[in-house]
């Protein structure tokens, strides 16, 4: 099975079927939020979508019954994937769903990225917005993709029935072939594709779906990724790999501190460097770009570029001071998010034991292996963009504005993403917007060549758009029987949504859900529960990161429940089971399974400890037991055992990979990397030597146990991350008696 290779077609003009301005504006305004568009009606989009703007070999589609499935006369099936493949395996999942209902053999199915189109390719959970994130891809598309495949199969069956003059229900389909057993007739799908295409398209909402008991691809453990081969032989194209004739390259000079803008710039020396074409400012304080024929020319030009920065709106506060400010703010009441019972009264009951703890997490960079990159080609007919985006339809708007073209004249060619973790979902369009602005500036100088912007690692690490720093102050009480009676929780965390295009649709009540998700819905049965929130502004650009708010809320909640257990003299597993008894059965089940697999009660040698955490996010329940060894104040994580309930396991291998990956990603933040700013506001990290992430030598043994389920699939890309840090912190406490409440976890020597 090979991956469709996304060779660019530089001569292509913007597609006439690009989303209308009205559609785009509705997305931007968020007026359609909450609206769920069902399967797009057959025939409502051109059959050309499969050959789809950036694929060259899916063009021979003979059957194109909907926006997602193309069948060629050679039997090749192309699945048009509305979600970005950024490593999470979404192509495998979407292809498996279609191929399952279509009864197509796995090696005949090939993924191709969908063009940006909010009407055809929207995330069904997000209204008229195309997007990949929050672990929603497979969950939102589960039935949609199955129905898309089932429609194609139904048309093939009917075509065969007519050709052979037999009843359709006597025709069986297996592995890409139609058979009429009694009449001894059979045909490959490809042979029947043209005849099927001439038939009316059945209603996807009523087309029969398979009985899950008969699934042969869904749930199969040996289904390999369709994108693997191209990634192994080096032919997979990322935006940084795009090469167009005459393409120029751009590199940027960032402001030295957040909020600084260009006051004046002397470009003389930079423009004198051979090969350098232009120096141009970027939108929204993103700095300046130098454009040249070759990357090393941009480096020379940047070295001699003299910029004077306007610091009137610059962030000149360090992270220590910001955290201190958060601590002060945590002493005052915030906006109430949740309030049941009377937590304040319960905390002061004389027969109770009350404890209080404060947890903090730092800013985090995403550090995907491929830095953000994008290519733009601005012509008289519009602008083409090659990039990998989690939010392509809002990027199109940002590109249109930056390039000063009509949104209908923006064509976005999706590439693979070399990781993302939220970084390629910037509400302002990010790198795509910036390269569009550069292309516009070049056009003003009469330069019509395509241009590629690639961030350096330093641009990425120092450039902001971090997971926000957060502070949690939690108080709790246990009664004389050891039962928790009160939980009072205060979060201080910068809003990600405020001031963005997503504020309207997602922040209706003035509370940014990304600050409190995981606490606001804390399932523990504590009778008096209170949560409030401060959303301070810092001027540091912040963004979603793998697991969003859960990445910090679970550290606080799962550390604190452990502290409550110790205050009550109760086993941490027993307390959790007790507090969850009326909540989600799958949370109980993952706890019981992980405790069993990890040998929760088995003794450990001195200096070693075992810690537990359970958390539910994106509809998925995950429990983990971490085993650590502490020696000379160094924390070594030896083993992580994980149990996960994510509904029907569509691709078990992908699920395991996502769980393993989320644990590794979470361990990087638990043990290694953080972003800090010195007391002038300058970011102190710049690259992997001082923004450390986990390397192979530090990776623990990871065991993944997937609970069987027939429920609809839930998220898997993120939910295994939140429990890691608290499980390790709880294990360190078990090993040493020292409670660590700051990430990354550091024991004082």
């Amino acid at each position, binding site marked *: 099975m090979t991956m469709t290779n996304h060779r660019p077609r530089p001569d292509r003009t913007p597609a006439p079927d690009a989303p209308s301005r009205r559609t785009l504006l509705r997305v931007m305004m968020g007026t359609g939020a909450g609206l769920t568009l069902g399967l797009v009606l057959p025939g409502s989009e051109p059959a050309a979508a499969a050959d789809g703007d950036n694929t060259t070999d899916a063009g021979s589609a003979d059957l194109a019954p909907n926006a997602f499935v193309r069948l060629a006369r050679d039997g090749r099936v192309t699945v048009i994937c509305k979600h970005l493949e950024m490593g999470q395996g979404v192509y495998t999942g979407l292809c498996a769903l279609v191929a399952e209902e279509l009864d197509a053999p796995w090696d005949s199915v090939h993924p191709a990225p969908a063009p940006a189109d909010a009407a055809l390719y929207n995330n069904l959970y997000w209204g008229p917005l195309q997007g990949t994130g929050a672990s929603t891809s497979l969950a939102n598309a589960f039935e949609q993709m199955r129905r898309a495949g089932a429609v194609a199969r139904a048309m093939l069956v009917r075509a065969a029935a007519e050709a052979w003059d037999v009843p359709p229900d006597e025709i069986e389909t297996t592995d890409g072939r139609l058979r009429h057993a009694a009449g001894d007739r059979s045909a490959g799908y490809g042979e029947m594709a043209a005849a099927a295409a001439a038939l009316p398209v059945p209603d996807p909402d009523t087309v029969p779906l398979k009985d899950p008991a008969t699934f042969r691809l869904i749930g199969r453990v040996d289904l*390999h990724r369709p994108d693997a081969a191209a990634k*192994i032989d080096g032919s997979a194209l990322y935006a*940084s790999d795009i090469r167009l004739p005459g393409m120029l390259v751009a590199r940027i000079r960032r402001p030295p501190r957040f909020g600084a803008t260009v006051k004046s710039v002397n470009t003389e020396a930079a423009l004198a460097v051979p090969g350098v074409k232009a120096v141009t400012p970027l939108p929204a304080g993103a700095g300046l770009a130098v454009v040249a024929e070759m990357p090393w020319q941009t480096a020379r030009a940047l070295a001699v570029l003299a910029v004077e920065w306007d610091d009137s709106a610059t962030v000149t506060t360090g992270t220590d001071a910001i955290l201190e400010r958060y601590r002060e703010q945590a002493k005052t009441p915030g906006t109430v998010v949740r309030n049941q019972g009377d937590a304040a009264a319960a905390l002061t009951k004389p027969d109770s034991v009350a404890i209080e703890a404060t947890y903090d997490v730092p800013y985090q960079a995403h550090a995907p*292996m*491929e830095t953000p990159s994008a290519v733009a080609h601005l012509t008289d007919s519009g602008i083409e963009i090659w990039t990998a985006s989690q939010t392509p339809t809002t990027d199109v708007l940002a590109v249109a504005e930056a390039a000063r073209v009509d949104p209908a004249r923006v064509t976005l060619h999706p590439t693979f993403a070399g990781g993302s973790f939220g970084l390629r979902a910037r509400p302002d369009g990010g790198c795509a917007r910036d390269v569009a602005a550069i292309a516009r500036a070049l056009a003003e100088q009469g330069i019509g060549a395509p241009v590629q912007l690639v961030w350096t690692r330093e641009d990425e690490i120092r450039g902001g758009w971090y997971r926000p720093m957060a502070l949690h102050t939690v108080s709790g009480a246990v009664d004389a029987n050891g039962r928790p009676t009160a939980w009072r929780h205060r979060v201080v965390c910068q809003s990600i949504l405020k001031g963005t295009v997503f504020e309207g649709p997602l922040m209706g009540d003035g509370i940014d859900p990304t600050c409190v998700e995981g606490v606001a819905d804390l399932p523990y049965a504590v009778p008096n529960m209170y949560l409030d929130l401060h959303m301070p502004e810092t001027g540091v650009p912040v963004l979603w990161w793998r697991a969003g708010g859960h990445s910090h809320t679970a550290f606080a909640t799962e550390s604190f429940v452990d502290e409550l257990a110790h205050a009550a003299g109760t086993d941490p597993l027993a307390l959790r089971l007790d507090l969850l008894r009326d909540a989600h059965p799958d949370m109980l089940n993952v706890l019981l399974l992980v405790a069993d697999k990890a040998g929760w009660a088995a003794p450990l040698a001195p200096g070693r400890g075992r810690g537990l955490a359970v958390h539910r996010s994106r509809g998925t329940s995950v429990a983990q037991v971490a085993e650590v060894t502490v020696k000379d104040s160094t924390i070594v994580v030896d083993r992580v055992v994980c149990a996960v309930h994510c509904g029907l396991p569509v691709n078990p291998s992908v699920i395991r*990979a996502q769980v393993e990956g989320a644990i590794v990603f979470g361990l990087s933040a638990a043990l290694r990397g953080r972003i800090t700013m010195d007391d002038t506001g300058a970011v102190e990290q710049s690259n992997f*030597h001082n923004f450390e992430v986990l390397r192979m030598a530090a990776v623990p043994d990871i065991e993944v146990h997937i609970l069987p389920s027939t429920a609809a699939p839930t998220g898997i890309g993120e939910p295994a991350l939140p429990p890691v840090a608290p499980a390790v912190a709880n294990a360190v406490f078990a090993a040493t008696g020292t409670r660590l409440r700051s990430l990354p976890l550091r024991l004082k020597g």
Partner: protein
Amino acid sequence: MARLTVNGSSKSIDVAPDTSLLSALRDVLNLTGTKYGCGIAQCGACTVLVNGDAVQACQAYVGDLGDAEITTIEGLSGPIGDALKAAWLTHDATECGHCQPGQIMRAAALLAETPDPDDAAIRTAMNGNLCRCGTYGRIHAAIRTAATSLSDPAKG
């Protein structure tokens, strides 16, 4: 003008001697399978073979390479390359894929030098190659599978 021997053929390229091998490969020769990840030899995404040794191309310079035989992911062939690529598929070792050419090149150098690496040898050899998707366990298993198949093709 400089000369480079890449994947078995001699290339004449119009760059200064202080041009990095990474830039020569990616920006001049359009061999984009070798990736940029950090530019300071901290991530291994740009790992290629120079006379069989794993080298981070961002810190190698065209003028220093002389007649060295440079092998990139596009030119990786032979029993070790084939075994690694097959094992990578078997173990689904790729996620986003951006680090994987460098991982595979580093693993190729390891197996050429140590045909039967133990756990510690694999961890040591691969420790300079970052993967943010967290495929380390699968990469480790794939290297073991490749080593096994090379020593006994019947088992591979």
